[in-house]
């Protein structure tokens, strides 16, 4: 019998309601979810189903209207903006559809950026960023600007940036959405490799092929979890 892996993140009765003037939009309604260490989770659902909101709440970008969010055993549902910034900085890595690299910074600097906010020394930043740039296979592009890279290379740089603080959770929001099929497959392969190395990865997508790669699939509709299965 294997021991159950520790729980990284847990949502209990989480609801999120956006108020836009007189209109209340319920983005999430009574969501219960638990993500264990080392899982590879795909969150799917049509647009407006609340999957982005779910990612924002799990990724400490947004607060909940009601319910509890526990990250690594700590209740973060009432955390202040500064505390959430600190958690995002040290425990969470984001990979976006549009890469979101800073255009005037080289790959090396982009990857170093989270370490800068963590207050890590210049020398150590360079070493750690270098290691991850090598890991994602961009060693010869470290001093290029994002615009000098292909889409796939940019996404690799973004993944390196997400990994640089050794986060507990990695979020990827449609990471292959701006890439061609072949490059997308390579990026997905990179995520699979990271998963094999024991990292916890959550991919938000509406592509069923990508969802099929993940070990667990959570489908959302109208702010509720309608399916939660291991594939």
């Amino acid at each position, binding site marked *: 019998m294997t021991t159950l892996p520790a729980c990284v993140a847990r949502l209990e009765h989480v609801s999120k309601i956006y108020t836009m003037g007189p209109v209340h939009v319920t983005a999430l309604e009574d969501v219960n979810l638990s993500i264990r260490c080392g899982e590879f989770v795909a969150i799917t659902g049509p647009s407006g189903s609340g999957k982005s909101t779910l990612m924002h709440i799990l990724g400490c970008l947004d607060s909940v209207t009601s319910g509890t969010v526990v990250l690594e055993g700590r209740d973060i549902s009432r955390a202040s903006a500064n505390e959430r910034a*600190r958690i995002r900085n040290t425990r969470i890595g984001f990979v976006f559809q549009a890469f979101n690299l800073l255009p005037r910074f080289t790959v090396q600097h982009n990857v170093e*950026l989270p370490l800068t906010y963590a207050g890590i020394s210049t020398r150590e930043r360079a070493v750690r960023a270098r290691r991850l740039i090598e890991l994602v296979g961009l060693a010869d592009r470290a001093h290029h600007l994002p615009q000098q890279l292909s889409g796939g290379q940019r996404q690799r740089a973004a993944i390196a940036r997400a990994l640089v*603080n050794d986060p507990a959770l990695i979020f990827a929001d449609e990471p292959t959405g701006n890439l061609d099929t072949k490059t997308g497959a390579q990026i997905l392969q990179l995520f699979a490799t990271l998963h094999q190395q024991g990292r916890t990865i959550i991919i938000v997508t509406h592509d069923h092929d990508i969802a099929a790669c993940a070990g667990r699939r959570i489908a959302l509709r109208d702010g509720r979890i309608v399916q939660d299965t291991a594939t």
Partner: protein
Amino acid sequence: MGILQGIIAGFKEIWAHKLRSFLTMLGVILGVAALASMFAFVEGMFAGWKQVMQELGGMEKLSTNESQIPETQRPFRHIARQRRRADVLSVRANVPGVAACAPELDLQGGLVRYRNKRTWMPVYAVTAGSLLVNNQTVAEGRFISDLDRATGARVIVLGSGIVEELFEKNAPAVGRLIYFRDQPFRVVGVMQPLGGPGTRGMRRGHDFMRWRNRFSYIPLETGMLRMTGTKDLTWLNYKVKDTSRLDRIAEAIQNVLFLTHRRLLNFSVTTNTEMFERFAEITGAFGVSLGIIASISLLVGGIGIMNIMLASINERIREIGIRKAIGARDRDVLVQVLVEAVVLSLTGGLLGVGVSVGLTEAIGVILRNTFSAPVVRAGPLVFSFCVSVLVGIFFGMYPALRAAKLDPIEALRYE
């Protein structure tokens, strides 16, 4: 994120938008230049006027001039006495605290001739005391002596300006014979040029100094006996030992003269204090109004910075979103934007200080013949520079707060 990295990032940002940054800085450059130049200008006015005051005898000088006799005393006008040597003796005997007395007679000037050269020169008949009372010294030879006065000698001490005009360069003036109003005078001395050799006043040779440097002096009695034929004096000047007792001494002189003039007020005792006070007032008013104008231009510079920073953060909403997503706190974003604004204003301030130094030099060239040549000092430059930094902080604060308050999710979605 450290301040140093922030500053480096700020400079990079400025470098990335060279033209835009320069135009923004221009406001601060002009504002700081105006402020620093204003300081130099007022400072120059102050220094110039101080010099003039000093050369008019300074604060220690008291003067007795002729004055309109009051209406009530008009009927006794015919018995009124003019200012005479007796007044000097009474003052010297009865008023303590007077360091020197200088009875002077204005001869209204006249034609002076040396060989074939002629010129007009202002001449005063004086005693030895004038040298001290007017803060002057003799450059060559000697001044009027008591013996000259006792004998009514035809000797003259020439102003340096007259010497330049009449005699060939570098030749000794003492001992020569000149004719003033067709009477022969032996030159016994030459006055030290005002402003002193090599000082600003002399080198730039402004008009006031040139005029003063033509003043020439003969013994008082010579003037009375051989020129005017009266015993009346034009001025009775005094120098006091202690300026803090100036008012009391002026009052004492007034009282003594009141008696010697048979209680007829055909004289007035004046001090230089009023002139000093009026001058300080004018300088102060100039300082305030120029300061306000300079501040308005700095304000405009600051608004320019605020405007450009708002535009800049609007362009970089997505960047701010990314930075926040990877862990930048509100404070980090605030510092980043603020540092950029301060770097802009600081660079502008430095350039502005440079411009002001150039500007004051240029104004100095234009104003070289006046007293108001601006004076550049380090203090006002540093002050103006510091003000520019404060302007950056003040006008950068609002854009920085706006950037810091951006919601990361909204910012990331922003196209």
